[in-house]
């Protein structure tokens, strides 16, 4: 497998084709943004009374480089104010932390539900519709309730904080894909495999550990990834909702006030949210690498 030097570039290109095209895709979106801003009509494109393409004023569409530049500038003119990048970074990490807590809670709750539902058919028929229904409740409506109920809680020396509320709200979104995905996964083993376990005289718990859990991995991984993205969204929404300081949600509120005079500023938390959403989903993707053997299908070569 000796390759000439001339080949290395081609090899590099083919290996990183996906990454390069991805970067190109993002670049295309950015270019489209700026081109439209440069040449699109000020008041956007209207069909009848409906605006189908946005306005191109600085207020509506800041230049992409302005948004980028904004990251390098201080948030406020106060002495010692951090630059926007580190402010967004800090807020992102804060929200990511809460989302991670929510994710863990959601995963545990989802798994427990899935276990119960896969164990008892009646539990599945009784709970599954409500699990689906739970996701039609607008998050913003339950956020203040969670905070209110949380403040009634005081276990030992531990008092409920608003951070806990945010984590619980993030978990409310995260548990759903896990419950549904794990349920499907736990029910996925072939009859042959179940028969084998039975023939070997193995009980429910051993079957769970030896067969059902490993077999559920291919279903669980995408569910966990989805849960990670949902947890981030949930955390940010909850922060907005209860005004928790320190995260991206609060930053959305704070920076909105500057939106008129400094239109690029409100985009900063959006980029932060996208970044941590991708980081969260990516981190779970890494989990997939660790669990790779469990994704094998066993189809003969």
């Amino acid at each position, binding site marked *: 497998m000796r390759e000439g030097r001339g080949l290395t570039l081609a090899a590099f290109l083919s290996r990183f084709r996906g990454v390069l095209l991805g970067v190109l895709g993002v670049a295309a979106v950015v270019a489209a943004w700026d081109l439209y801003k440069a040449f699109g009509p000020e008041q956007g494109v209207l069909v009848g009374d409906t605006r189908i393409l946005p*306005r191109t*004023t*600085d*207020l*509506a569409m800041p230049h992409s480089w302005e948004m980028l530049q904004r990251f390098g500038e201080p*948030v*406020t*003119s*106060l002495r010692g104010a951090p630059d926007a990048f580190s402010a967004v970074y800090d807020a992102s990490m*804060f929200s990511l932390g809460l989302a991670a807590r929510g994710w863990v809670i959601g995963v545990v709750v989802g798994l427990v539900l899935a276990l119960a539902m896969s164990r008892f058919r009646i539990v599945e028929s009784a709970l599954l519709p409500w699990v689906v229904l739970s996701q039609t409740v607008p998050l*913003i409506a339950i*956020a*203040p309730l969670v*905070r*209110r109920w949380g*403040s009634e809680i005081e276990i030992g020396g531990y008092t409920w*904080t*608003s*951070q806990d509320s945010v984590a619980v709200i993030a978990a409310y979104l995260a548990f759903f894909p896990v419950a549904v995905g794990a349920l499907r996964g736990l029910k996925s083993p072939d009859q042959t495999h179940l028969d084998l376990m039975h023939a070997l005289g193995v009980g429910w718990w051993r079957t769970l550990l030896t067969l059902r859990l490993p077999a559920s991995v291919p279903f669980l991984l995408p569910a966990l990834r989805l849960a990670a993205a949902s947890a981030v969204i949930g955390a940010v929404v909850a922060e*907005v*909702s*209860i*005004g*928790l*300081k*320190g*995260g991206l949600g*609060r*930053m959305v*509120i*704070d*920076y*909105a*006030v*500057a*939106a*008129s*005079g*400094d*239109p690029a*500023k*409100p985009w900063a938390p959006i980029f932060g949210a996208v970044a941590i959403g991708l980081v969260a989903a990516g981190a779970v993707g890494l989990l997939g690498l660790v669990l790779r053997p469990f994704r094998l299908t066993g189809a003969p070569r």
Partner: protein
Amino acid sequence: DDGDSDSEVDVASNKDCAAKTKEARDAGDLTEVSLQLQWVSQAQFAGYYAAVAQCYYVDEGLDVKIVEGGVDIVPQDVLASGDVDYAISWVPKVLGSIEQGAQITDVAQIFERSATTQISFKDKNITKPADLKGKAVGSWGFGNEWELFAGMQEAGVGVGDINLVQQAFDMNAFLAGDIDAAQAMTYNEYAQVLETVNPDTGKLYTPDDLNVIDWNEVGSAMLQDAIWAQTEKLSDAAYEEQTVKFIKASIKGWAFVRDNPEDAAKIVAESGSELGTSHQLWMTNEVNKLLWPSTNGVGVIDEAAWKQTVDIALHTKNETGATIITKEPPATAYTNEYVEKALAELEEDGVDTKGADFEPITVELKEGGK
């Protein structure tokens, strides 16, 4: 920043006070008291932040924790459910909650005047409520809309006669012309407009570009920021005493804000407010105008103003035809008992609680409020 909305005000600017607070806390001399704000930290609440930073609360033996609000936080309910000791909220918002069963009492009417206005660009020719007819009119909802509705109703404009638009946190909708007349707090959104470059001139918008409908002038103003306490606990002597102390220190804080607007703005900024510096100072100055000069001393509830607020709450209909309240509020809805005690003590200490010769400063707004 511990990232919690139950955050303590961490004031670095006053080293003496920080030390004093720590000392008193360690000695166990302080009573913990929490205050729920109506919104996130900003100069609208400068007096309370100043009272913390200047150790006025500590001097009264109180260890005050300021709890910020949020989009979905209803301060009066947080108070009624006993999660905090005091709350800041607007009277019309609370009247509804009282009718729904919240047992709380207005113990000090900090803002004497309303800051709510309806602003529009000059070319729209909207100078009085009657002109709103047929226009796209912005409002935040969340209980901030009643003065607007009352003013319109007075002028014979029904909610159905306008195109009512929910207003976002920013003023972009107004600037882009989606909204003809936007709701604006003098201390906040009005400034946001003035911090924006007018694309026609290349310079910032000026007050000359705008028409302002001021509800104080129209006569539909309602009472805004007040300190609320739990009604039931007011029969408890310790809580009563604590309430007096809390009001006293708070008013002292507001007096500090009046006399040192720049410092006050800085205190608020250091408490974690992300607002730009010039915007923060503008807000401080505008909020001062709502308190000072004070007719009867800051915090005293003027019966006429209260009655006007209640009247409007009883008779103004919103878009669904509902009114804020359907019957007179209970007598426990407000009391001057504690604020008067506090004012008397302040008087004794030589604090000016009327600010008769108050003169606002002039604040120059910078682009984006920076």
